[in-house]
């Protein structure tokens, strides 16, 4: 009950902030922000603490934004095939595409161990764009670069698959005369 209304004070808040700023600066989304802009981002982040096996979000639920793991480990699972897609640890991030289009979540994320995760959400990003357009544009550009990179990788993968498919189609034809 006490924890509901009394804000838990960090043992070393300044050290915590400095650590988090370091984590943020390392992320491609925030890499172009200066210290002041990063501090503005820090002010709108939502700190959450997850216990082992606690769900962060579920597949198909509306996506509101991205999460940054400061400390801990999470599992990314596909509920459809009950597949473990990935495991992410300290300094990693997930759900960033929801910052742009608020699409439904493509997987379920569950904390594997006690994790300290920061949420950065679309409404807060919109607010930041209005209040601090320079920082907002830098973040959106960072996100765009990230999406471009993913698109390039996906294109390359699609090209490779296509090549493999062509080879598979041609293989029986070459084998026939033999």
């Amino acid at each position: 009950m006490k924890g509901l209304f009394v804000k838990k004070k960090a043992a070393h808040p300044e050290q915590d902030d400095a650590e988090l700023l370091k984590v943020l600066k390392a992320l491609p989304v925030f890499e172009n922000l200066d210290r002041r802009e990063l501090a503005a981002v820090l002010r709108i982040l939502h700190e959450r603490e997850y216990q082992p096996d606690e769900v962060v979000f579920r597949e198909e639920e509306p996506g509101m934004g991205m999460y940054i793991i400061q400390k801990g480990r999470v599992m990314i699972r596909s509920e459809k095939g009950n597949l473990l897609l990935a495991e992410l640890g300290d300094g990693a991030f997930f759900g960033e595409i929801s910052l742009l289009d608020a699409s439904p979540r493509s997987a379920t994320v569950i904390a594997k161990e006690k994790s300290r995760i920061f949420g950065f959400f679309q409404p807060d990003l919109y607010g930041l764009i209005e209040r601090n357009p320079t920082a907002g544009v830098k973040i959106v550009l960072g996100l765009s670069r990230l999406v471009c990179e993913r698109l390039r990788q996906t294109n390359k993968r699609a090209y490779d698959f296509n090549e493999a498919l062509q080879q598979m189609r041609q293989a029986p034809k070459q084998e026939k005369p033999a």
Partner: protein
Amino acid sequence: MITFRDPSTRKMLLLLTALVLIVLLCAIGGIAQMLIIALLLAYILDPLVIRMEARGISRTAAATIILLTMTALIVIGIITVVPALKAQMVGMSSGESSAKTDLALANLQEVVRTKMGWLGFGDIDLKVKLAEFKASFGKRIVDFIVSDFVGIVLALVTIPFLMFFLIKDALTLKKGLIRIVPNRYFEFSLDLIHKMDQQLGNYLRGQFIDAVSIGTLATIGLGALGVPYFFLLGPFSGLANLIPYVGPFAGGIPSMIIAVMENGDLSAGGNVALLFLGLKLADDLCIQPLSVSSSVHLHPALVLATCIIGGNLFGLIGMLLSVPVTGFIKVVITESVQTLKAYRFS
């Protein structure tokens, strides 16, 4: 299925209970009114604060600028408007009427005596009745102001300060509110707050611009037509316009009656009716389409019921605030249900 054994659900229920208790406690005292007005003002002025922030002014500085501007406006208002308002209220509470009014009343009384005598109105003295009505109505306003003088002064000081802190700490308050929400309902709450913020922001700002525009135009129009007490009737019309359906009538009819009574001429009432018709057209064709981008549709019966409840609980202010507050509650319920459907709480 949501079960009460689930710690997250219990925490959420506890939070909801606490919120309901706070709302109930606030509703008992007059602080609820001040808090609601301060909240509405903070909400309405938020885009202005954001624009200032975009120009490099800190949120605290922006809130301070707004507080100082509001204080200056209140002081200017007290110095300039209050004496005129006082003279008009004293005139109203004295119950005196002009010679033209007396003549009009005499004519009307003659009609009543000859045509409606069989209804038992033959001996009615309309002049005395009007003087009594005006005196009691004016006295009620004066009594309200005198008896609640401390309350008015307290509100004039408290509301701008409450508004200042609500603007300055808006982000912190929002974050603090979301912080106590359990992890499972965290994104849902954020989504809900964002949707409500969008809908309500547009609605309240639109209503505010609409009320100020109509109030200003009505004051200018009534002043130009020479209707007495226009300083009271104009702003009242603007505020009454907040109430859908009945608002324009509530604002227009008292002005028409006063114009007829003071001029002793029905055409004066016709001019006022034309003015309010023009205002209604301007409101429907120009002001509302420009200002009220998002409307919260409320059933006429619901509007009437909330006005009666608001009026009974908090008087005139309660009546005027009842529609925006009902709009707020409707948005909260509608958005909660819609957002809840998208999440899979188990």
